[in-house]
């Protein structure tokens, strides 16, 4: 049991006010309090990356951030960046290249891939592999994911994609 804390924050562009238990993790706050089921709980130890999402423009593990610490924060989840169209090209590439199988890691993987492409416009395959290494995928073996991210990077640079 723990004390409750009042927070007001922006989630996917909407202002949200709630009282949360001090121990409530961001991933549980999103899933259980707001019904945003797109971010997934994989390990609850900050290892697997399935709950990766964005707080104040930076990617974080939803299972390692306490909701009580987010008063005034801007949170963006897979639902938000889907609706805004921000990562539509990445999503289309993941579908076209079959870079998503069971889909459980995919929202977190996409958030991390989008984060890479914000700062590195011409990533090598090795750059992509390095940046995505905190996001586990047990289905694909990663090759198709690397292909998809590489394809989007090339397209965003106006290059032809083979």
């Amino acid at each position, binding site marked *: 049991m723990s004390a409750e804390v009042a927070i007001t924050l922006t989630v996917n562009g909407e202002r949200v006010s709630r009282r949360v238990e001090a121990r409530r993790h961001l991933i549980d706050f999103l899933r259980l309090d707001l019904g945003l089921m797109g971010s997934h709980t994989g390990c609850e130890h900050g290892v697997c990356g399935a709950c990766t999402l964005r707080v104040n423009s930076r990617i974080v593990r939803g299972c390692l951030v306490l909701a009580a610490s987010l008063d005034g924060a801007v949170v963006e989840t897979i639902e938000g960046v889907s609706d805004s169209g921000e990562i539509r090209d990445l999503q289309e590439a993941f579908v076209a290249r079959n870079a998503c199988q*069971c889909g459980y890691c995919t929202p977190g993987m996409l958030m991390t891939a989008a984060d890479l492409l914000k700062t590195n416009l011409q990533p090598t395959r090795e750059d992509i592999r390095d940046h995505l290494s905190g996001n586990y995928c047990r289905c694909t073996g990663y090759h198709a994911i690397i292909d998809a991210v590489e394809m989007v990077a090339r397209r965003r640079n106006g290059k032809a994609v083979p």
Partner: protein
Amino acid sequence: MSRVIDSGSVDRPNSYIGKSIPRPNAGKLVQGRGQYVDDVVLPRMVNVAFVRSPHAHARIVNIDAAEALKIPGVVRVFTGADLVPHCSPWVAVLAHLKGMKSAPQRPLPVDRATWVGEAVAAVLGETRAIAEDAAGRVQVDYEPLPAAVDMETALQAGTPVIHPELGDNLCFERVNQSGDVDAAFAAAHKVVEATFHTGRHTGVTLEPRSVLADYNRASGRLTVHMSTQAPHMMQAVLAQHLGIAEGDVRVICTDVGGSYGIKVHVYPDEVAVAAIAKIVGRPVKFIADRFESFATDIHARDHRITGRMAVDAQGRITAIDIDDLTGIGPYSVYPRTSAVEGNQVVGLVGGPYDFPNFRAKTTVVFQNKTPTCQYRAVGHPIAVAVTEGLVDLAAEAVGLDPAEFRRRNVMRDGTYPRTSPAGMKFEGLSHEASLAKLLEMMDYQGLRAEQKRLRAKGIHCGIGLASFIELTNPSPFMYGIGGARISAQDGCTVRIDPDGSVVAASGVTEQGQGTEAMLRQIVAEGVGVPIERVRIITGDTLTTPYGGGTWAGRGTGIGGEAALQAGLAVREAALKVAGAMLQAQPDTLDLINGEIVDRATGAARMPLTELSRIVYFRGDTLPPDLPRELMQTRHFITKQYPFAFTNGVQASWLEVDIDTGLVKLLKHWCVEDCGRVVNPMLVDEQIRGGIVQGIGAALYEECPYSPEGQLMVGSMADYLVPMAAEMPDIEVGHVETPTQESLLGAKGAGEAGTAGAPGAVMNAINDALRPFGAKVFAQPFTPERILEALGKVGRG
């Protein structure tokens, strides 16, 4: 109708079989808008947290829940004894595995815990956090008992017998032999020998095991949302053990976040959840946390195998002799049993090769560790690593290049059907063509030259090959004949709706491999409609035809054929109606891209939407006796062969740092023959994903135990899985030898990657270490083990 799968002409009209088409259900997944079990929330739902044994073996003296029940929001606490009146025990044996034994198991044990992590009490709370808080306050008094931990000593006098009523810790043993092995070894030119270990590891589905059971007291019906591969099997098991009619149990699996065989088993804690839901009359949810996953998801591949191979002076294999020992935990897992993995090993060793004398023995023993059972490619990675390890040793012994040695020894293409020395029936395989294609893809000679160049610079790279066979399309010979209610047949219902769209419901299930994409392609082509018009239903026992689900490479080969036959039947039914409407013989018409056309000229005669409008709303205008059955169901089961074997060969190219023992994977290749390929992109991704799971076993993944039986893995930070940065690019090629058992001709593709990868990686490491006379045979091939082999560190 043969035009439907006229292979090689993928540009024929309205054709989808053989094309790389993206999955229809991927769009929701990339937006986080799928529905996994934990996403389902029901009114008055409560959550379960389990109290789990910290001991490998202990008597449960007393369970005191008083402190737990004081926490606000705690609904109830259940012990094993509380569930006894509500759920009957099970014994996981199969009649055709002769002599197999196991002990009765209950959802929660009544008086004894037999492995670390076994659930001993269930706490029901209004939220998961409350249930977990309360679980920590349940006081369990244990009397620790001596544990049987090491499989090597499981059958020795002095080792505690886990189930005294069984007499000993032996679950199952089998010797599979043909020819005269002893004579062959006596006459051999060379004999090679090694002892292999395949590390105990687990599947690590990113979505943990998840179940939400909802019992309606008024209707007497139980609905279970479950992350499972086999909903009909779960329906049968829950009905039988909870005493509910099978028809009153509905199992739903919408999206499943990874399975790989982990989610095809009956877990006692999940049965407990269903029993508790029936008792309390409220929806009850259980989502395993990651520790629970490591301690209670089935483990696999805990084997020690000694193997010998005899070869003649021409480098021909004359005999293989292996002795396999495997520890499976305290109970055989229900209902597929934990003897199947060892049984597969003794059937699959030596699989690709043509040799006359064979002996393989497996000994399956009980121990106080997490139960093991079937995980992706069941038994194959073990059999392949042993066989291919011996093959490389034999090639070295007779001074042959490993590729040349394989060329001399694989079964010749065009000599099928035939039966292997282990008694496996092969309808048609392509070892020679696959090996030739692989060597070309990887530029084998060029790579050997590169290896030599790098050696001169002190860089030690290795090439490892692994040929394999893979069992797919299982018949009732796998489980049904042993008495398990596990369907080997599968069905598909296809219907045309009034708007001309098509809905297909299938008994095979989707866990991300692309089952629904495969079905959609086949049904669209079978019926003759644009693929966008087809919707697929899977994963619901109430609305799909009875079937087995997806495991052992059966989705496309079995479920796909049923879908093809049902689609063709619907087309035929539609043409019958069209014939009446157009006053033409049905066989002069065809249905292509949603249009009734003249078969001869292709000229459009009528849109399908007009036909369906008439059938559903103006049936009065059709001849009264005309059948208008726009919904058809077909089932398929293999008949001639117990299994449809596939084959293939993999190669690994890697570098070993001889100072640190670290392995760097540089490239991996696979040529695979799964018969007809329905969607090349999806098949390639199955192969790649499977390979990486095999690489995980070879290099990283292990569930180690202390001598007392304490599991030494507590979180994902302790258990290494392959990450993106460590994995190589993987090139995949195909040879297609369709099965003649079906019109579609497809075999399974999901497990071949996992089957071959550990053997290929092992052989590549040993190839890199060759100048140092060092070899490793114990997976995972950690830096420590490699340095030990190099004599650079002592054995720990």
